[in-house]
């Protein structure tokens, strides 16, 4: 069953600090459960959003907690769409090549796995860079309810 999300309470803002990740996961996980996902799916959707936000906080906002971004949740025909909206430098995470995990482990590589988790968990990932200096970059993570 697909629940109707509360459209007045479908977004949160967060600062550029990793201390914010816990509240983001709680928000996304609760919304995913409300939408009808099983617990393990809601857990993994929250994980994918955590990875997106962790990358944003570290690489774009440089852990500056004076900067803000927004996580917004929408639904469309049985799809849950989570949008991460920021005003940092544009960077499309999908431009990161997929790692060969056998090679990764053989060479004891480090880092770069967040985007791979996002790919594994979500059905669709889209990135819309800000078109003007006052606009926001929008990363959309979509998961279909099976």
């Amino acid at each position, binding site marked *: 069953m697909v629940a109707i999300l509360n459209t007045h309470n479908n977004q949160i803002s967060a600062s550029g600090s990793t201390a914010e*990740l816990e509240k983001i996961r709680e928000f996304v996980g609760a919304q995913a459960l409300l939408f009808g996902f099983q617990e393990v799916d809601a*857990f993994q959707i929250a994980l994918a959003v955590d990875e997106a936000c962790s990358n944003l906080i570290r690489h774009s906002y440089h852990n500056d907690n004076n900067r803000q971004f927004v996580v917004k949740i929408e639904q469309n025909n049985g799809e849950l769409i989570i949008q991460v909206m920021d005003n940092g430098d544009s960077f499309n995470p999908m431009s990161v090549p997929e790692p060969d995990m056998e090679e990764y482990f053989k060479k004891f590589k480090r880092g770069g796995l967040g985007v791979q988790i996002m790919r594994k968990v979500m059905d669709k990932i889209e990135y819309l860079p800000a078109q003007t200096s006052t606009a926001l970059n929008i990363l959309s993570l979509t998961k279909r309810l099976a």
Partner: protein
Amino acid sequence: MNESKFTIEHHSIGDIKCLKIQGYLDAHTAPQLESAIGNLVQEGKHKIIVNFSELDYISSAGLGVFMVYIEDVRELGGDIKLSEMKPKVFTVFDLLGFPMLFEIVENNHAAIAKFSN
């Protein structure tokens, strides 16, 4: 600032060091675990068990901590064995194929037995 919900308990079992981790292991808390394992490695302790029985969450930042030290401890004849993982936490390891590289066992007894072998 609120402290995140992550703690580490240290135990020794002979020459094996056990870190029992609790709470959430994410980009915010991973440096705590990296520092704890790094201290053990610096002290020459290279047989390490990380007990996950009370860990409720891990992200790639947490997975990355194990990648930092696994090569070093194995070169010294040791290992980092991971025990008592909750199913939802195991799914994160499994998503990326981490069971290919890490020994993930049912409990600390099994991990100790693996070190004895």
